[in-house]
């Protein structure tokens, strides 16, 4: 199985380097992939994994270094060249066209001129033979994220590649869908194909990968056999030091605590043809508890967040109640004045204005709620007070930055997220709603944000967290509920919740049905 024994390297990379401005994204990276192996590429966000595979697929040009394919030196100048060599890629984002059908999407990446109907038939046959059923005539915009990934995989397989690169393939799948994917990958390996598997999920890497290469800050820090490592030893290689474990103190007396955030029969029509309607959502979050909303992306979480935060107003004022008062007709500012705080999913452009300083971003979100503190007589902005408050947040959240008060866009994703969460925490809100609190954030920063959310709840606030990351929800929540197709399941206390139960709910199983299926399985 190991490449060193038979010496048949399909792909060999030596000293590959890519420099963006002052940042060295990949620094003399070496990588060997043998025929018929599943090779993991591990690393934190920003470690250079995506840059490396983009160079292998020809979307980026390396500054220096060599690539050998079957022993021959090659230059991969475009994705077309990569495809001709036999390299296929399943992308994490940005590669399907929503307004086209599945078959048209597949046709676009095939160079032969065969008619769409032939391609549709081939795609259908291949998808069923791999157990990934697909209707080639459906419109991509109507499909779930898992189904979209099937299109990507089928599209890749139709090109009969020797090497398949998968970039974070399970980040959008339910645990059951991920199992299906692993079966497919193992079957491909048995057919002699090589797979480069990019992930930061250590358990699945241990489960399916034969070898691993670990990247940190653009450099290779080690090669290993993941089956012989533990999850924590792999994490240590990725992060470089121990990650602080999140501590969740037991929540006491929640049953009798007051309900601070109540959602009652919240219903919303789809805003665009491709968006999800919200169907009769009910939820209560009490003082002192963290409730997690799990779900595959695109099942109405974004629509739900907009409705709760006041970006979209409700007809029925009682459908969103903050501290017992109807807030459905109030705007974001109105809801903030009632003691609520919101952190949206997108950091740049939604959570923060990219080209404005951190202190200015602070004023933008809090000028109404902290008017007396930040704005003086005649509407004059109190620069000193804002600067001091911004520095307080930066210190509390350990935001790493290059200047005293940099532009939001100058911060790395994780540090900006720490600032945005810290900006809301600084107000000590009694209700906090966060969408994807640690998306794209490195492990250290993520642990910090999670701990801060738990502490806020334990100090008597109600915290609602929407996340795609199940590990995160299990770490911080007192109860987990699942959003599927615009509906919310009954909250499951954390003691009763398991990955299997939540996974079934994410896949759309009935709440009662989920347990039944488990028993028979």
């Amino acid at each position, binding site marked *: 199985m190991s490449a060193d024994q038979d010496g048949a390297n399909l792909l060999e990379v030596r000293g590959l380097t890519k420099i963006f401005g002052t940042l060295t994204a990949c620094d003399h990276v070496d990588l060997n992939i043998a025929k018929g192996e599943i090779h993991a590429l591990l690393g934190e966000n920003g470690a250079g994994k995506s840059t490396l595979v983009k160079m292998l697929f*020809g*979307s*980026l*040009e390396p500054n220096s270094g060599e690539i050998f394919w079957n022993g021959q030196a090659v230059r991969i100048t*475009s*994705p*077309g060249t*990569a*495809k001709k060599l036999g390299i296929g890629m399943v*992308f994490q984002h*940005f*590669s*399907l*066209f*929503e*307004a*086209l059908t599945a078959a*048209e*999407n597949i*046709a*676009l*990446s095939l160079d032969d*001129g065969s008619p*769409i109907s032939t391609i549709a038939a081939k795609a259908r046959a291949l998808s069923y033979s791999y157990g990934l059923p697909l209707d080639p005539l459906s*419109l991509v*915009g109507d499909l779930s994220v898992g189904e979209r990934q099937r299109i990507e995989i089928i599209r890749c397989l139709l090109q009969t590649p020797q090497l398949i690169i998968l970039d974070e393939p399970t980040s959008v799948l339910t645990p059951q869908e991920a199992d299906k994917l692993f079966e497919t990958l193992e079957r491909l390996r048995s057919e002699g194909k090589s797979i480069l598997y990019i992930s930061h999920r250590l358990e699945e890497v241990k489960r399916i990968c034969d070898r691993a290469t670990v990247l940190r800050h653009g450099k290779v820090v080690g090669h290993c056999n993941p089956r012989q490592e533990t999850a924590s030893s792999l994490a240590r290689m990725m992060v470089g030091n121990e990650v602080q474990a999140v501590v969740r103190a037991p929540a006491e007396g929640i049953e009798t605590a007051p309900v601070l955030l109540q959602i009652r029969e919240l219903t919303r029509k789809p805003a*665009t*043809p*491709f968006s999800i309607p919200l169907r009769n959502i009910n939820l209560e979050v009490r003082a002192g508890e963290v409730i997690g909303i799990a779900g595959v992306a695109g099942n109405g979480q974004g629509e739900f967040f907009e409705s709760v935060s006041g970006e979209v107003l409700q007809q029925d004022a009682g459908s969103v109640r903050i501290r017992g008062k109807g807030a459905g007709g109030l705007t974001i500012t109105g809801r903030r004045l009632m003691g609520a705080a919101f952190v949206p999913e997108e950091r740049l452009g939604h959570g923060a204005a990219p080209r404005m300083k951190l202190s200015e971003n602070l004023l933008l979100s809090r000028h109404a709620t902290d008017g007396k503190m930040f704005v003086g007589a005649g509407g004059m902005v109190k620069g000193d007070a804002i600067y001091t408050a911004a520095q307080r947040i930066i210190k509390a959240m350990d935001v790493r930055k290059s200047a005293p008060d940099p532009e939001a866009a100058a911060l790395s994703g994780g540090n900006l997220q720490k600032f945005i969460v810290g900006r809301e925490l600084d107000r000590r809100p009694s209700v906090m709603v966060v969408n994807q609190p640690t998306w794209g954030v490195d492990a250290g920063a993520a642990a910090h944000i999670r701990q801060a959310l738990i502490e806020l709840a334990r100090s008597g606030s109600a915290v609602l967290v929407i996340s795609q990351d199940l590990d995160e929800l299990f770490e911080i929540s007192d109860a987990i509920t699942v959003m599927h197709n615009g509906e919310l399941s009954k909250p499951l206390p954390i003691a009763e919740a398991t990955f299997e139960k939540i996974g079934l709910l994410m896949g759309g199983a009935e709440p009662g049905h989920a347990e039944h299926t488990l028993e028979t399985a």
Partner: protein
Amino acid sequence: MDITVNILLTIATAATPLLIAAIGELVVERSGVLNLGVEGMMIMGAVGGFGAGYLTGSPWIGLLAAIAMGAVFSLLFAVMTLSLATNQVATGLSLTLLGLGLSGMMGTNFVGQPGERLPNLDIPGLTAIPVVGRLLFGQDPIFYISIALTAAVMWFLFKTRTGLTLRSIGDSHASAHALGIHVIRYRYLSVIFGGACAGLAGGHLSLVYTPQWVENMTAGRGWIALALVVFASWRPWRVLAGAYIFGAVWIGQLHAQAFGIPVPSQLLSSLPYLATVVVLVLISRNKRLTMMNTPASLGQPFVPDR
């Protein structure tokens, strides 16, 4: 009967330049580029076509010159927005302003000169058939080109692989680039095609519609063509319908004004715009279909990271 035929013929003449310019812009926008310079490219085509026809005495050379003029002028837009990634709206607007000014300067000596007119089709035996003969076999050559062009663009966009690729670029240039499609090359060719069409539409004005050179003779037709594309939700046959509705109401209100109908002339003059908008809004009520046909990356500059 003869009057009806004459009215139908004038409607076709009024609709043809709008149709050609709009079909060209439709292809450009389907590739994700918003070129607001249609008016400017059209007037350059008009002055180029008139000038070449006048100087050589051949309206056919004028026709080719009009097409070439529009294409070359659009190349300026393509270099700015595609290679230099300038703002498409600002660049398109300045292209229109530049075209209007430049054509005025180039045409100083053409003002008041008699121009060459492209002859109407005349097929012995066929053109003489009562009523349908002149409608089907007796119009100017650009009319036939416009119909063939619409059919060809429909077939190209929805039946060919290249057309599918073009539409995919308009939907998401980042995805297209990731698949190895040459986004910039496709967009260059689309913009130049759009320019050639706008030039041809301008040539129709100065070689068929009114065979003479008048400054600003496009009179806002480029803008109408742009609006048609949007209201037709980027579908060729709807552009055709829109152009002819506009032409029909335009000619109708001219006749109404001539008859002295007691309605303010300003109101009558606004009718074509109103009628076209109402009809096209009615046929594009299906929100889902409109979403599917709207190029999602329209107007966004594309800079591949390398």
